[in-house]
């Protein structure tokens, strides 16, 4: 599927779902997305579960803070716990927010697991008319990722060699991150300059162009998938309002 089309669909449905505060809409949508993923894509489900784990915990965090700190809405009290009365309305809203977190993260995983990064940038440039200067700039940055990783260990080793102590606790290490950050950024500045000169020397002008080495197209599957996606979105919106 075309990455740009997928990107627009995912963003659109997130914005639409954000309008609904009943628990059913996000729940229906969430189940629908999982069904879509089960039937239409081949992904590593073990990895998927691993990624979903922090979000499930986050959703739980949302659930209980909304119950405790939620706006006073009145309605029948369904249960009380430690002096906090939970009304029906509050419970519905809390569930809705929690399901929303789940639906959004599933949707995000759908995108992350099925999209090739390079193809995404190429598609942004070709379908969304993103300036080549920007898209190739991002590509350069992306290709430098492994180099950056090496540099990070190198700087750390160099500092250890000179006797800079490593902190014991992880939060202390987080605070002393600037010691590594500044050399890394300085290195990034120099690399940026060098690769920009190299690109210009090879004739890169950054002008918009009409022909590409790797064309990315929109085809029939894109229309079909967009249709299925929009139907799912519509069904969960209408079904959600009707069920509550």
């Amino acid at each position, binding site marked *: 599927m075309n990455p740009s089309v997928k990107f627009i669909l995912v963003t659109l449905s997130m914005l639409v779902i*954000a309008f609904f505060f009943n628990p059913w809409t996000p729940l229906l949508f969430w189940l629908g997305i999982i069904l879509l993923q089960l039937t239409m894509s081949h992904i590593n489900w073990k990895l998927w579960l691993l990624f979903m784990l922090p979000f499930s915990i986050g959703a739980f965090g*949302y659930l209980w803070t909304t119950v405790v700190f939620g706006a006073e809405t009145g309605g029948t009290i369904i249960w009380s716990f430690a002096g906090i009365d939970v009304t029906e309305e509050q419970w519905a809203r809390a569930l809705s927010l929690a399901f929303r977190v789940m639906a959004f993260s599933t949707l*995000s995983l759908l995108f992350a697991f099925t999209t090739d990064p390079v193809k995404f940038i190429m598609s942004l440039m070709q379908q969304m008319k993103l300036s080549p200067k920007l898209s190739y700039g991002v590509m350069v*940055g992306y290709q430098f990722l492994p180099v950056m990783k090496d540099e990070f260990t190198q700087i750390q080793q160099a500092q250890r060699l000179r006797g800079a102590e490593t902190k014991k606790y992880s939060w202390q290490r987080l605070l002393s991150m*600037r010691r590594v950050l500044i050399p890394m950024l300085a290195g990034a500045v120099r690399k*940026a*300059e060098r690769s920009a000169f190299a690109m210009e020397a090879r004739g890169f002008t*950054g002008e918009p162009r009409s022909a590409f080495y790797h064309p990315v197209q929109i085809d029939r599957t894109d229309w079909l998938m967009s249709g299925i996606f929009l139907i799912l979105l519509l069904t969960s919106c209408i079904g959600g309002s009707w069920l509550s």
Partner: protein
Amino acid sequence: MLKSWKLKEVVLMSLFAVVFGIVYLLFVHAANIWAAVIGPLAYEWMFGIWFIVSIICMYIIRKPGAAFLSETMAATIEVLIGNAVGPRLILSGVIQGLGAEAVFALTGYKHFNILVLMLAGIGSAVFSFVYGYFVSGYAALDPSFVALMFTIRVLSGAIIAGIGGKYIGDALLATGSLRGYAIAHAKKGDVNA
């Protein structure tokens, strides 16, 4: 808008976006673990970290769009690396970038002192809060709790993004690698830069 940009400035922005994209992701994970314990309030005080790249890039490059583009790029890189928050991050990056950009645009891209940088951090905070209010459904929370979240986020934007951004920018300037960028010319009092 990009006509006046040199390629090296675009690539510089992209590399910064890579570095901070990684930093951002680390903090997303840290914040997610936090959030499970104390709820959405966990994100607020560290929100400034996620605005920092736009402040640093604008401080260095000083051209219209630097804040907006760099934040968007950082978000895109985060998505490219592959993470579970997904494409929604790009949208929040766009919005945070716009917040900072708006402040710089209001000052006419002429002043880059600590006050403006802090205001830019606040701009990002306000924009991202409005967006978060909508997407994360803060409307369902108690108004006083929302007000508390908002205050913490604005402070975080001003302190971490504004002051921290200037600090990193100055430290980088001291390494001497920024010759050839607007920040170095400005220090020498070169008006044409």
